[in-house]
């Protein structure tokens, strides 16, 4: 009896220890970022690199964030992220739902095209997309900045996979009751897909927040730059101001982290409930 009682406790302990070890391993680069952000400009360049600053230099944060108009950059990034995440969620959920649920002529072909689009090496689309946005007269505008990422094929594919793994009985029942397709989608399918949507939103947000090349090529004016472009500007060809760059990067990480914590409850709540039951 006591053995039986102790076994799950031991298991729990080992999992807890394992979890902590993994997590510490994962968190190392972040700690390094913070540590670097607090170092002197030259201290970073020692051999071997120091782990901790001799004395933390908090002023790095203030200086890094005021050298460039970072308030404006954050606002821009927020707008870009908000617009793209919303649009990607709407388009992705609709597209994924259609591909998962409806049988119609050409469905397989459409899915193949979506899947194919996933495989296009993004780097080579940069110039054609730029020429397109230029032809539409949207270079150096917020519209141009946002346009390229309004739809994420990854998202469509991901939502399709999730909808496939969800049971469809409830939807069929509603259909028999005479509910319209759009109502079924918004009232039944979407609420069930909340965890997937939260995951998708998280990824979409990260992608939008961390995009560098497109914002750089498609904007010219300072007033349209995003945070990531701002961070990159501390990193020259022969010379990088590591503490400033890391101070800005750590600050830029906070919103992403917040979004992670905010979305986390959606893709784990159900699990916890079922575990408690």
């Amino acid at each position, binding site marked *: 009896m006591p053995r039986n009682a102790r076994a799950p406790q031991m298991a729990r302990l080992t999992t807890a220890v394992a979890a902590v070890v993994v997590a510490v391993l994962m968190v190392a680069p972040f700690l390094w970022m913070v540590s*670097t952000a607090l170092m002197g400009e030259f201290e970073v360049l020692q051999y071997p690199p120091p782990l901790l600053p001799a004395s933390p230099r908090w002023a790095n944060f203030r200086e890094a964030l005021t050298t460039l108009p970072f308030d404006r950059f954050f606002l821009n990034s927020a707008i870009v992220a908000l617009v793209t995440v919303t649009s990607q969620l709407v388009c992705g959920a609709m597209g994924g739902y259609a591909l998962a649920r409806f049988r119609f002529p050409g469905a397989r072909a459409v899915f193949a095209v979506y899947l194919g689009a*996933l495989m296009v*090496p993004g*780097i080579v689309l940069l110039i054609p997309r730029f*020429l397109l946005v230029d032809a539409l007269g949207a270079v150096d505008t917020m519209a141009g900045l946002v346009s390229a990422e309004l*739809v994420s094929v990854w998202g469509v594919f991901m939502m399709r996979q999730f909808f496939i793994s969800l049971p469809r009985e409830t939807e069929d029942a509603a259909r028999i009751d005479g509910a319209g397709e759009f109502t079924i989608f918004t009232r039944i399918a979407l609420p069930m897909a909340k965890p997937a949507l*939260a995951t998708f939103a998280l990824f979409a947000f990260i992608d939008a927040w961390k995009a560098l090349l497109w914002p750089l090529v498609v904007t010219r004016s300072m007033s349209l730059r995003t945070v990531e472009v701002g961070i990159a500007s501390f990193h020259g060809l022969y010379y990088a101001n590591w503490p400033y760059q890391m101070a800005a990067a750590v600050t830029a990480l906070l919103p992403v982290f917040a979004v992670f914590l905010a979305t986390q409850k959606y893709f784990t709540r159900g699990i916890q409930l079922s575990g408690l039951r």
Partner: protein
Amino acid sequence: MTQERRAVRWGTILAALWLLGVLAIVYRVGAAAENALALEEARSVASSFDANQRPARTAMRYVPVAGPIVTVVRTMKRQLGPAAERLRTEERVLIWQTWRQRFISLPVKDADAWDIVGAVVVAANPVDMPWIVWVVTVGAGLLALGLLRRGMRLAATDRETAPYYLVADGVAVLAIGTAVVAILVRGYLQEVAMRLPPPTAITRFDPMVLQLPNGRLVALVVAGVWAAVAAGILGTAWLASPSQALSARRTARTAWGFLAPSGVHLLLFTLGPLAFTAWLSLYRWDLLATDRPFIGLANYRELLRDPQFWNALKNTALYALYVPVTMGLALGAAVLLNQPLRGIRVLRAMVFLPAIVSYVAIAMVWQWIYHADYGLLNHVLQRLGGTGHDWLGDPSTALPALMVVSVWVQLGYQMVVYLAGLQGVPATLLEAARLDGAGSWTRFWRITVPLLRPVSLYLLVTGIIWSFQVFALVYVMTEGGPARSTDVLVYQIYQNAWEFRRMGYASALSWVLFALLIGLTVLQWRLLNRRVEHAA
């Protein structure tokens, strides 16, 4: 009856759209051509005009207005609007579009080509496209309209014939009309080009020149309009046809409606550009150059003969092997961090951190871990009695070292997807199995893993694609070295497209990569999807 009327209405609208679209394009092209001709006229006036002397009013059809530029700007304001101020500062040809007329202005410089001393403003002709273009456009539009209305009505009532067949004549008229218009417009453009000085490398970036529209591009746009309209008509006919069951029709309409937003964007921002790169891959193409010769398959031949391409391909394939490893670990982590432990949410966030930290920081940390002299890894190995190694300096270990970093970066990402997927596993199923006496291990393998197959398939497919496409890690850590042991295909694409400005070659490389990925995905799909469908 409503079905029939709706079909006819949509058919009419689409044909009208075609008519308007083509007319608009033809008008824009004509206007651009007239502007270019007007500029030529302005140039000849400017060249005959001595800045210190009023031009004679004699035989010219111009009204010369001498005097300070400011006064003239004021006089012109009525016609050109308040933006006329730009005449004084901008050293380029300007087009002024008022609701009635287009003006072209050409700055006049002093003898040293330094100061702007004036401007020649010429009113451009109204669009002078050959009348046959208008006749063909309007004629084809009206004819097609009639044929389509008839076809649509039939499609909505005829139970036997295929709907495509019934609207085919209308669609064909549109197609022929489109082709004729494209040919005529191109001929017109060539004719205009004859009257203008030939373009050279110098005129490409000359702000004192107006470029004529590219005939091929115009033809392409017109063809695009036709294709979109034809697809719409055929789709409408199909939907209207009663030979389709009502529910199937409704499903199709709903599905297309749901797909429309993403589909349109996909067409515009991915498939269009992709087709463009296919075309590019047959050229030697540089964004800056004027000379972009057609070289057939030479780009493809070059890459097949290049040992560095094969080396990169090998590295790319090896590198992708990190994906299944990550998936296994991610599933483990997801199950591990799925427990209702205290502080588990923080732990999850920590595991996810590498996925959001900047690549530069990742590179720095891992260079530190792998360092031959002071690296953490060698330190630990030496403690355990092993010997150190220059992990990133040795060509045989550099790529595996990068793969470890990739696993570590992607772990959190994939874990999140698995966590979300785990929620879809019904607790009742697990509970029932538990009551049947299945152990936790059995439950995991027999219930959780099979139910997670769609998620796993997603992760595998996207993970492999991702691994083929992402080079940030290579870029910040090794730049392809040492001895090209970490050179991957995307990095070559990036270098060729941007550093070497060989867009044609980069496009060829991308198409090879694209084809490879399609092949791989089809393979994975064949192998895994059957089981997925079974599980679902």
